[in-house]
Every structure is written in C-alpha cells, then in structure tokens.
C-alpha cells in the first residue's frame, strides 16, 4: 500500500465527497484507513484468503461506484463498510452451505474464536476497550452473537446449534448487542469511533 496521500487529513465525509467526484486518491485513503478491518472480518468469516481478498475489492469497488449508498446519519464509514462486507460474506456463506454439510459449518463457527489478529497502533487502545466491553457479555449472549455474526448463521440455525428455543436466541442477541452498545457509549467510543 502506498504512503498517505493528499487526503491524509480529510475526514471520512470529505473523502466520500471526493470519491463521488471519482477522485482515486480519496478512494486510496479510504482503503488505507479501512481495508485492513474489512479484510480481517472477511478472513474470519470466509476462512479463505483469496476469497477474502476478492471481497475486499468488491466492497471498495462498490464504494467507488455508489458512494451515495453511505448515509452519515446511519453511522461511521467504517461501520458502513463492515456491514456491507458482513452482508456479502453472509451471502457467500449461505450459498456455499448448500454444498456443505451442517457439521462442517458448526465446526467452522466453533473455530471462530480469539481476537489475535495484529492490530495497528491506533487500534490498540480501542481494541482494549472493546475487549473489556465484550467481557461484560454473558457467555450465552456472546456465543449466540458470535455464531450469528462470524458464522453467518441465522438466529434459527444458532438455536439449533446451541439447542435453545429460537426466542431465547433472539433475545440473547438483542440484550447482548444492546449491552455492548451501552458499554461502548459509556467508554466514549460511540458512533464515529474511528475516522482516521
């Protein structure tokens, strides 16, 4: 990746305005800031480096072609890119799963543990805070959320895997995410938690 360019000091909204004008330098800066996170998520969900790389390209090409899909009021650019990547990964996992047996998928989800990916310096403090916030989740909430989020399972599938009623899984996902949210707000890492 190239060193910081002319947009190093521009905020994410400014980048989007420039991307909307087909400014490649602005896209490069958005990539520099957020591609690592998108790649880490895709790698963890898809388990194949080549597929994860493909997905990163797909996400940033979409940003290039359709920057207006991003709405600032609905969260930070990073959240938008991660949600976009997440939805695409889920699509791939679900179409893939038609050819895979259930055991293998469960195995994949159980392997999905540990936040041991290298973090950039700017991420470290934040990562620590997020770990602390995650630690406040109850085990049941955390299991349900991680199976759904990283495993790409529906809450119904999670209920099957964990042998719990569907309603229980739905409410664990909700209380868990809500708790995570308020923890993060308490720690002052709300909303535009990282823009540069």
């Amino acid at each position, binding site marked *: 990746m190239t060193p910081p360019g002319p947009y190093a000091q*521009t905020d994410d909204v400014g980048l989007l305005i420039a991307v909307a004008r087909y400014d490649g330098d602005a896209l490069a800066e958005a990539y520099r800031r957020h591609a690592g996170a998108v790649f880490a998520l895709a790698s963890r969900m898809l388990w194949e480096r080549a597929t994860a790389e493909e997905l990163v*390209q797909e996400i940033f090409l979409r940003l290039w072609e359709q920057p207006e899909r991003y709405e600032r009021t609905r969260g930070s650019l990073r959240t938008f890119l991660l949600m976009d990547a997440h939805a695409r990964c889920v699509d791939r996992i679900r179409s893939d799963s038609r050819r895979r047996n259930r055991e293998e998928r469960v195995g994949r989800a159980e392997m999905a543990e540990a936040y041991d990916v290298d973090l950039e310096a700017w991420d470290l403090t934040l990562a620590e805070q997020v770990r602390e916030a995650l630690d406040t989740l109850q085990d049941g909430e955390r299991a349900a959320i991680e199976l759904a*989020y990283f495993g790409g399972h529906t809450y119904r599938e999670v209920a099957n895997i964990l042998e719990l009623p569907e309603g229980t899984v739905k409410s664990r996902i*909700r209380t868990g995410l809500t708790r995570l949210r308020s923890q993060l707000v308490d720690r002052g890492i709300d909303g535009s938690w990282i823009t540069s």
Partner: protein
Amino acid sequence: MDHELSPDELESLLAAYAIDAVDDDERRAVEEHLRRSPAAADEVARLREAAAMLAIAGGPPPEGLWEQLEAKLQVSESARPPAPVIGIGSRRAPSPASPAAPAAPAPGEGDRARRSRRRPLLAAVAAAVVVLLLVGGVIVVASRGGNDNPTTTAALAADARRQPGARTATLVDDAGNPLATAVVLRDGRGYLDSSLPALPAGRTYQLWSVGGSQPVSLGLLGRAPSVVAFAASPGTASLAVTEEVAGGVSAPTRAPVAVGEVRA
C-alpha cells in the same frame, strides 16, 4: 413465511436483522418495517455500531491488493472521456495512477460513455451529476461531474444569465471587492464565475448555500476555479465560498472568503 409478522415479532427481530442473522423473508419484512418506523431504523443503526465493534480486528490489508483494485478502477476509467487538464477540482494533472474526474457532460451532448456514468434519476440535473450525502442532517451536494470543461461551462453560464427567472449574485470579500459572480436558474442549476486567487496544494475552495439553518455544501471548486457549474436548491438565498482542506469538509471550518446574496 406463512403469516404476517406482528409488530412485536418485527421488533424482536431487529437485533438479529442488524447482524444479518435473519432469513430472506424476515429480512424483507423488517426492511419494510424500517421504512415506516424511524425509531426502529435508529435502533438498528445503533445496534450495528455495536456489531461493528465485534470486527475490531485490524492490521494491514494484504500486500499488492490495492494495486489489483486500482487496476480495476482504471478499466472503468478507460471507458470515460479524457478529462480536460484544467478544471474544477483538478488537484494535479491526471496520471495513470490517479483516476481523474470525468468531464461534466453538457446538456444535450451525446456521449454514451459519460451517460453510462450518470444515474438515471439524477440525469435531469444537467451540468453535473449530483450525489446527495446526508451529513448529520446537512445535505452535502457533491458535484460528481468534476472537471467541467471551462469553455463549455462558460458558454452555458453566459446563456444562463439570459434565461427567464435567472437570479444573480455578486460575491464580495470583507472589503467589498467582488471576487465572483453567480447565476442561479429556476431549476436550481447555477454557475459561478470567479477570479479567486489560486491556492497552494492541498487546499480547495468550497461553495456553500447559506441562509437556511446551516450552510449546505454545493461542491468543491478546486484550487484555481474559473467557471464552475453547481446545483443548488432553487430558493437559495445566499452563496458563500470558503477555503478548505483538499477533499472538502461537511461544514465550513472558517469564515468565507466571499459572500453574496442571490437576487432576482
């Protein structure tokens, strides 16, 4: 799904929906619900911010991936007409490594490559394709037509002044020296003709519509603007130009270098 979901059922699905953990039927039902319920949409946005934290893992992207991506941008670039060397927002001459903004199509100009880039609903906005970004309640109008051809734009601007209902503005600095003139047509199309001094690299002029509760960006003018097309709300009361960091800002960061009221 064999039954309509009740409001309670829909509410109970919001968190699962926020992390894509619902099936296709449920997703469609929730999305329909979100269109009717701003509160539910806000809730999903909040939960998504939290969910994004789960993906905190960072690290650099793989070596060489950006170069592959950039090559794909250039493929789509090659379908575009060459950008004029002088133009709005051209921070430097286009090079193979940096896709330049395409020329703004003039109304009636038949260029298939350019047209293919225009979004159909917005194509009615003649001089530039406009992208709306909602920025904390402020609508940022980014002109996606970048490098206007100065000759064509100047001709259009001259023509615009003769249109019925055209309103004009003279933008002056603190001392009252005129630095730019503008014309705004009934449909909101506008042109700004300026003699603003050139800025150093890394800076740009940005045009704003003022008079409402907050300034609304009408786009970036580049370092050395001459004649620029923009799209404003037809009722725009005043225009202002600020100097900002290249790439622009969502709200002005300093006092304007020139302001002027738009008058009939």
